[in-house]
């Protein structure tokens, strides 16, 4: 019997409880529904949840704390010498016991002590689980019984359910928020460890990025330099190129869609444009590396320019194409939101379409367009795949779009793929970069949201 089966048993209890509770409610008023405070189904749900929730809570406790409990009981049963090991070694030892218990490979020779410990562990785990499972079923049954007993025509089960739904929604939003907090705080913790190796000023203002560190003390090699400026400069360069492409094309196509296109043309073009948003970025990467970059290179050769086969320009161009749909669909929304009455007023004064667009529609929609632009910028900053494939890995500090550059996300990828030592400055620097990147995109999104909010108050 496992947790899934246990949940299934709880569902059976809940279903039974639903049926019984509903029937009891109907019986209590002799089948005349309007004499009930709430609808029969509300009583059913009330009874069902009375049966389901207590058991669910016990299962959650088991999932969250059961493992630790079993560990501690096993540890207590183990000899003195194990308990007196250092924290680190004790954790390793427990890992081995756990792995052995599920017949996985372990890091030390299998001894008799270890075997018996593993058996003890398995037994304890099973016993504790049974305690939890039986108490979950027992408490659920009792609770369902009392829930059903409470069902009477006066019980405001509809209102109770309403409140329960509110709690459920609060829990859901709390999950989203807590996840964000968790991600950020784990980034911060590791970043602080990184800053023990490399001073903050070196990281923020250093001009050289070369994260290779010596693996052994006796190894000849660089001690690594972690100046993030070239990475952020590369990111900025590629982002600027992308926005330089995407902003005019996206905005103008949005204007065409909203102001000029006939409904038929709009119905044809708009999904087509949004198809661009559905292309996986890795495919854009192919396109950048195999089509755009060689094309740039050969056209550069034609006019006598030496261009690397990987260039910021290629990555930026393709990234620009990638974010066109983002800008155009967001701009489309804000332009459509400009009230028709403003257009009418402008046309009524004898303005042409272009005059109306330039003087009335774009200024009115500008806050929304700016925020679309900022969202697109944070999308471009966070993009990795295209840059890996088209712009290269070389951390050049340059403003020349024809050279190879690299971006923050690409370096994070490079730092964390493959075999890495977790406590080296090299690996840890990925987290610092991640945190810095997060701060930047958060800032951009924050501004974008502020602008959108201000914009929303503008009409009426």
């Amino acid at each position, binding site marked *: 019997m496992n947790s899934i089966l246990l949940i299934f048993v709880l569902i059976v209890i809940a279903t039974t409880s639903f049926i019984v509770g509903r029937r009891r409610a109907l019986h209590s008023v002799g089948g005349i529904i309007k004499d009930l405070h709430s609808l029969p189904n509300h009583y059913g749900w009330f009874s069902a949840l009375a049966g389901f929730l207590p058991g669910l809570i016990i299962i959650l406790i088991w999932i969250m704390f059961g493992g630790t409990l079993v560990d501690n009981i096993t540890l207590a049963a183990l000899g003195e010498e194990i308990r007196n090991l250092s924290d680190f070694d004790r954790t390793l030892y427990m890992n081995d016991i756990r792995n052995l218990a599920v017949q996985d490979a372990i890091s030390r020779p299998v001894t008799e002590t270890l075997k018996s410990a593993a058996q003890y562990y398995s037994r304890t785990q099973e016993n504790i689980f049974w305690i939890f499972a039986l108490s979950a079923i027992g408490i659920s049954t009792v609770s369902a019984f009392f829930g059903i007993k409470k069902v009477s025509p006066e019980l405001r089960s509809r209102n109770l359910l309403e409140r329960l739904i509110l709690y459920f929604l609060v829990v859901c939003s709390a999950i989203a928020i807590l996840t964000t907090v968790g991600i950020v705080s784990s980034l911060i913790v590791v970043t602080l460890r990184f800053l023990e190796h490399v001073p903050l000023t070196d990281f923020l203002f250093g001009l050289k990025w070369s994260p290779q560190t010596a693996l052994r003390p006796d190894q000849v090699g660089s001690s690594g330099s972690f100046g993030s400026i070239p990475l952020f400069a590369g990111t900025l360069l590629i982002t600027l190129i992308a926005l330089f492409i995407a902003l005019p094309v996206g905005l103008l196509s949005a204007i065409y869609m909203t102001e000029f296109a*006939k*409904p038929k043309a709009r119905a044809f073009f708009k999904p087509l444009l949004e198809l661009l948003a559905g292309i996986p970025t890795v495919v854009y990467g192919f396109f950048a590396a195999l089509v755009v970059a060689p094309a740039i290179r050969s056209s550069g050769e034609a006019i006598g320019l030496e261009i690397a086969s990987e260039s910021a320009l290629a990555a930026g161009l393709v990234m620009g194409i990638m974010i066109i749909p983002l800008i155009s669909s967001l701009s489309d929304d804000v332009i459509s939101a400009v*009230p028709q*009455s*403003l*257009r*009418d*007023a*402008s*046309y*009524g*004064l*004898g*303005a*042409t379409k272009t*005059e109306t667009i330039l*003087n*009335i529609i774009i*200024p*009115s929609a500008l806050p929304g367009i700016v925020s679309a632009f900022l969202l697109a910028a944070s999308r471009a900053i966070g993009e990795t795949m295209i840059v890996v494939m088209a712009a290269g890995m070389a951390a050049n500090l340059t403003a020349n779009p024809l050279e190879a550059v690299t971006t923050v996300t690409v370096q994070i990828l490079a730092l964390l793929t493959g075999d890495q030592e977790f406590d080296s400055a090299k690996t840890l620097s990925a987290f610092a970069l991640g945190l810095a990147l997060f701060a930047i995109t958060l800032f951009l999104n924050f501004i974008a949201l502020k602008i959108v909010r201000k914009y929303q108050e*503008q*009409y009426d």
Partner: protein
Amino acid sequence: MDKAAVTTVQDLVQPTIRATNVNIYYDDTHAIKDVNLDIPPKAVTALIGPSGCGKSTFLRSINRMNDTIPSCRMTGQITLYGDDIYDKKIDVVQLRARVGMVFQKPNPFPKSIYDNVAYGPRIHGLANSDADLDNIVFNSLQKSGLWDEVKDRLDTPGTALSGGQRQRLCIARTIAINPEVILMDEPCSALDPIATAIIEELITELKERFTIVIVTHSMQQAARVSQKTAFFHLGKILEFGDTSEIFTNPKVEKTKDYITGRYG
């Protein structure tokens, strides 16, 4: 009965606007049916009638605002001082500079008060210098009775004004391009009684300079501000004549019912 009821105004030498056999359709809906109407110069002509009778549609056809609605089709002829406004040679942009429009909901641009009024003159090149433009803005705000209220804050947004002030700003914006005709589509329906009274007073003053056509739901308003009244019903004009005549002695039973509030 309909034909007999339409009083064409023969005593005027030349009407400003003459509509002849006008029919307007939205896709398959026949919104305006065979409307003939002569609108006299320098007077207020009110278009009244129950909701959905086509008065706004007809009004919008006078400066071709219906052109912006793709499903809208029109037959017949509308002339402005003898020029067929639906003629291919007519530039709709210039037409709208001659026939200005004030809308139901005050719709100032989200720009400063000054820029709202200066918008039309700027796009039509009516001012030769900044001083010229200042002058136009001053005159228009003065004529719309808004100058004293806004002279100290011309650079604040027009959207920040009160409802009645906004509507007067929209009127100022329209008279800034010095049109020959001003069309008003229920200009007071979104305003409180005091603001309405101010606008009505303004309309009465404006008719000295402009030919005004106003759509209104309020019988009292039509009676107060207009000299001519046309009664629309189901896309047709059932009765047209002097306002005093229509309100005191309507010839058609439906008009009488509507005016006395028996239906509408």
